[in-house]
């Protein structure tokens, strides 16, 4: 099956800074999702992005499927952005969602 790798594993930012999180996948995928896991453990959907670029407020994501990576951009970070960010890819066979190990983001005031 496919492998999904995220980088960096940890990131500490000062409030107001920008950041880029990366997700690499080892094979072609049907689709890709980005999630934010809040302090209570719930996975919040950020983007469903098989290719191209999407934006939602201060967050945007770009997936380049032919090069097997996706990027999540966070601009003007806020303390409420803290938490773990996961990317997950839908593999072609069976449609299973394969998660990366996550990037733990901490935004300091």
């Amino acid at each position, binding site marked *: 099956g496919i492998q999904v790798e995220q980088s960096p594993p940890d990131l500490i930012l000062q409030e107001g800074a920008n950041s880029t999180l990366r997700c690499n996948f080892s094979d072609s995928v049907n689709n890709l999702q980005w*999630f934010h896991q809040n302090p209570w*453990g*719930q*996975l919040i*959907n950020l983007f469903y992005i098989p290719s191209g670029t999407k934006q939602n407020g201060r967050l945007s994501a770009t997936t380049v499927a032919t090069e097997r990576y996706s990027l999540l951009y966070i601009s003007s970070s806020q303390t409420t952005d803290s938490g773990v960010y996961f990317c997950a890819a839908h593999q072609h066979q069976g449609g299973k969602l394969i998660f990366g190990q996550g990037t733990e983001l901490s935004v300091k005031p």
Partner: protein
Amino acid sequence: DVKVTQSSRYLVKRTGEKVFLECVQDMDHENMFWYRQDPGLGLRLIYFSYDVKMKEKGDIPEGYSVSREKKERFSLILESASTNQTSMYLCASSSNPGRAYHEQYFGPGTRLTVT
């Protein structure tokens, strides 16, 4: 908005007990999934279902069973709970037009402790 709910946020059970975790979605989704999340191991798929009364094993089905009697409800059953099943359990659902697997939406999770 899609809403996926789980019966409990926190649950404490004793070793050997039979445990039921319930998940309900309100978007008429065909697919439903059960994952567990453990530190250092990430999210792992236990079972999933693409239709009523249908189920398929995920990566770690041992020690678990599932039931899908109605489209909106997917239950995870621990027949005889053990301490190594202490974990965060997450339910998800997605639509399934033409057997394609679309965006998954997750419930709030259940933190299960088995003592």
